[in-house]
């Protein structure tokens, strides 16, 4: 770049017909160039520090709740009643007590559950796409994966609510089960299981895209070497391709996790309306219990925004989401940065 501007400078000074005007015109031009560069740089810096703006504005409003509850905010339960209390509290006696443990656990359960479905299935699909897919099936398959990624989350929520939830309610939930759980939560199909299914379909495409990229990036020569050693295709995939693509696949899973944690709308539709804390001791019924996640709480409880205590509590939820998404992004760039470095050292 540097030589080019020197070159332009040389061109401009090489034709000094009327020396003075040229220099001043040249100065003006130079000034304009600099001004544009600084303007663009300003925009860039603004894009980059937007994340800090977001942090500042979100965390600032969450501070009162964190101050009032400390670490208890994520260790205590009782969200629904506390929220009701704060909402109804008279303005001169605000209630700042909140415990978001059910939301945190709801987020963890649904996310982990979605990953349990999406990672094996998505990895299988990626391997299929890269290694086994007959040519005629490749275009339809990539198109459908891209389509799945493009469908808006509210549509997933809608389909989940109309299809998945009733199916769970009719086939998996028995009256007996519902009776046993009646004091804990109503089992109506909106559940961890429904959330897992819907979320896994939503995060599947991004994971498939990233892990198939990682698999495609494995040098062909590794595969040929393994074949020439008499290793079968499946063992080559297992022993050579997957280990080599490992970091890219992990980065993909991390990004998919980030998306699962932050999904608000679809989960607010299928996860159930109560901040219930499911218990492993209920056995498999665990999966049929309703939950609420941090993100869907912000949607479902948004009418509480006009009360400052409730508002602050929702901002506290957003803070947890924000910090975990930042952590995941940083982890993903770190891992895939290692991938990039690794690839560079290979070639």
């Amino acid at each position, binding site marked *: 770049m540097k030589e080019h501007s020197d070159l332009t400078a040389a061109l401009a000074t090489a034709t000094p017909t009327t020396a003075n005007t040229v220099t001043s015109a040249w100065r003006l031009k130079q000034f304009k160039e600099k001004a544009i560069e600084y303007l663009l740089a300003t*925009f860039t810096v603004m894009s980059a520090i937007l994340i800090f703006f977001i942090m500042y504005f*979100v965390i600032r409003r969450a501070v009162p709740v964190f101050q009032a509850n400390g670490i208890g905010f994520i260790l205590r339960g009782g969200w629904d009643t506390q929220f009701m209390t704060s909402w109804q509290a008279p303005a001169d006696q605000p209630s700042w007590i909140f415990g978001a443990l059910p939301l945190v656990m709801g987020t963890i359960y649904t996310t982990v559950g979605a990953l349990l479905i999406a990672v094996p299935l998505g990895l299988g*699909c990626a391997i299929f796409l890269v290694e086994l897919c007959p040519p005629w099936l490749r275009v339809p398959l990539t198109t459908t994966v891209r389509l799945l990624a493009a469908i808006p989350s509210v549509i997933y929520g809608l389909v989940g609510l109309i299809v998945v939830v009733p199916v769970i309610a009719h086939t998996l939930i028995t009256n007996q089960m519902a009776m046993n759980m009646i004091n804990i939560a109503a089992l109506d199909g909106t559940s961890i299981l429904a959330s897992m299914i819907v979320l896994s379909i939503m995060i599947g495409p991004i994971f498939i895209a990233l892990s198939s990229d990682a698999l495609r990036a494995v040098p062909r020569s590794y595969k040929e070497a393994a074949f020439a050693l008499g290793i079968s295709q499946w063992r080559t995939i297992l022993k050579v391709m997957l280990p080599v693509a490992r970091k890219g696949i992990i980065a993909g899973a991390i990004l998919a996790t980030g998306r699962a944690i932050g999904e608000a709308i679809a989960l*607010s539709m299928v996860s159930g309306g109560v901040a219930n804390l499911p218990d492993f001791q209920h056995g498999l019924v665990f999966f049929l219990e309703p939950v609420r996640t941090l993100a869907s709480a912000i949607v479902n409880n948004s009418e509480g925004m006009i009360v400052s205590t409730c508002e602050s509590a929702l901002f506290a939820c957003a803070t947890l989401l924000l910090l975990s998404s930042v952590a995941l992004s940083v982890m993903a760039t770190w891992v895939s940065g290692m991938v990039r470095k690794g690839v560079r050292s290979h070639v």
Partner: protein
Amino acid sequence: MFKRHWLAYAALWCSGLITMLICLGIVLFLVVKGAHAISWQFLFTDPLPSMNEALSGGILTPLIGTVLLTTLGIVCALPWAGATAIYLAEYAGENQFVNALRTGIDVLAGVPTIVFAIFGLAVFTLPQMAMFSTIVEGVDNAQAFGRSFLVAAITMAAMVLPFVIKSIEEAIRSVPPSYKEASYALGASKWNTISCVILPAARAGIITGVILGIGRIAGDTAIIWLCLGGSMNMGGQQPWWMPQHWVSTLRHTGSTLTSYVYFSSPAGEGNSPGKAFGAGLVLVVFILLLNAVVSYLGRFTAIKEDQ
């Protein structure tokens, strides 16, 4: 013994086919459930407040809301994203500072939209931001309501920013260096080269980025729900389409296809799933058309799409 990997192969085939079936299933289901809701009347009447599905009107305002919001959002995002992309592709070198900037933008791409939504609310309920939305008196703590088309559009712009930046930057980078060299050889300045040679050459890629941004804005619900509100019709002075009321419309609440779907689904208050599917189908067709345009453009430029 190694012939016995058929189980693994069967599993791989299954996962590929299951993925396809899920996608086809969802699209077919949407078409079957939504198609009979769609009619000219459905597309061209306003939603009416009624619990009776037969009387609850159509989706005209949500449709217009989606178009309005995507337009506004992308208009806000494009200059900003374009400037950033140009700087990153053409001016920024490779150093610690630039890496930090890139990381900042990458991190932004991972922030959930619900967090953007609540951030938008936090910013636009500030009294200084009252001009973007309408003031509601008597609400505890807040001078401004913080919900309007303007608020939602600006928040959307922030949300799509990292994705648009990325695709424009890639478009600019994929312009052959020979174009640039030819321009410099003619004595053109750097900015002239960028604006007259590089940007036109990267046009298809830039359009791709814009369309991807539009798709994201049109498909988002979280920001709509918090920053635009849950009312079905335009909230400003009526009739909202009169030019003298435009400013008022932009400063008031409204709806889009996504919020209409949410509102009409069993999860919302309207509870007319047939209409929700109709609107959902319209939305998905809109987004599929955008994607078709992208892959059509992608045939001419080797732009890699964002994930």
